[in-house]
């Protein structure tokens, strides 16, 4: 059973986002890391660049395959988690602790397009 945290919002493509004020912290879900298997590579849009909701902001690769990362929100990237870039296997250890990017939200109304924990839980079945 994959872990779904109560205080986060989710995408159908298995990213999570934690919103604090106008800063959104983004990562991939436990379900995603489990399905990917051993994660060995991570690439994300650099700080200062913009991302758009449901558009690609990076790539995560397991030993087997590459998968696109889709941004849950629009805005400007404030920070990339260098620790996750350097040691992407941390995502397998704890995908909610190991965030990938922080984004300054450009449109808080977009959050209504995301899944709440219950809806995401259903999505994972």
């Amino acid at each position, binding site marked *: 059973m994959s872990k779904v945290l109560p205080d986060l919002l989710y995408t159908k493509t298995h990213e999570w986002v934690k919103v604090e004020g106008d800063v959104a912290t983004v990562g991939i879900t436990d379900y995603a890391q489990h399905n990917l*298997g*051993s994660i*060995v590579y991570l690439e994300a849009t650099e700080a200062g660049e913009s991302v758009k909701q449901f558009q690609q902001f990076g790539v995560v690769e*397991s*030993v*087997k395959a590459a998968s696109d990362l889709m941004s849950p929100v629009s805005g400007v990237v404030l920070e990339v988690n260098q620790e996750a870039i350097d040691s992407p296997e941390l995502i*397998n250890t704890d995908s909610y602790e190991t965030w990938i990017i922080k984004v300054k939200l450009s449109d808080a109304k977009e959050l209504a397009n995301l899944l709440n924990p219950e809806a995401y839980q259903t999505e994972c079945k």
Partner: protein
Amino acid sequence: MKKTVLYEEHLKLGAKMVEYAGYAMPVEYSGLANEHLAVRNTVGVFDVSHMGEILIEGKDATGFANYLITSSVPKQNKRMMYGMMLYESGTIVDDLMMYHYHPEKILLVVNASNLEKDYAWITKQAQSFDVRITNLSDETSQLALQGKEAWKILQEMTDYNLSKMKMFDFDEMNILNLPFLVSRSGYTGEDGFEIYGKGSSIITLFQTLIAKGVTPCGLGCRDTLRFEANLPLYGHEIDADIDPFEATLGFAVDMAKDFIGKKALEGKQLKRKVVAIELLERGIARNPYEVLNEQGEKIGYITTGYLLPGKTQAVALAMLEEGYWAIGTTVYVQIRKSTVKAVVRNKKFLNKTYIK
């Protein structure tokens, strides 16, 4: 979807299952990297019951196999040989292992994904030979026990003296008092055994191996292990439009005898071949990404590539045009929107330690 006899065992072990060659197969259990390293460091067991087994029997068995396959049937009984079947065009129908029981009985073990095509090809070619061709695939299950501790584990379960078995020897023997065909061989670059038997026997053996602490290994690490050992996979390094020399498998082609596809090979100049590359920048080169030269022109493609478990630099096998084969040559891999610098290197991703 077909199931191997071990399907229920895989589920009990919590395997992630995928479809491969029409079978539900385990891709990983405890994790690909963990399984890969278990085979490299100790021992792992794979369910490879999906593989195809085709038996050639009869007066002309040796003559037919020598005509059908690029390499020569071993002179000694109970010896194996790696080889390929070619189309008249010289490109590859499939690669296989032949098991030479005796001159009138030869077992071919072929890729699961090619079984139907192979069986049709073999029966078609056999028409003017005095042979019987039997597809034993559905009644044959197979385990691969791989790693430096494989012999020790297996020896605990049999009276047969395994120390007299050299690489590519095979024999029939009892394990746990059940009959099996066992060869000292594998697809991982490690010492190990491939074990064929009836479904019920294979289930008992698999359960016993797991109880003894052998790591169950899925198709995921089967591919990383074979790649690291520079062993080809059909659909990647070899294919219906690739010839053995392009795949650098000339060692398995006996040009001194007659075989299907030989004529085409004789007249052909080598214009591309599989080489190894190492990425000098971040990224993972995967099949079928394009490979470019300094000018940005396409010079080939990646056949297989990985960032291997326990390694920090991604490596790949690539089919490259002439002129880019020398070790040290700079090439570029198109990975999504970026071109990533790489260098042609030797193919020894792994230092094989087993004794031949």
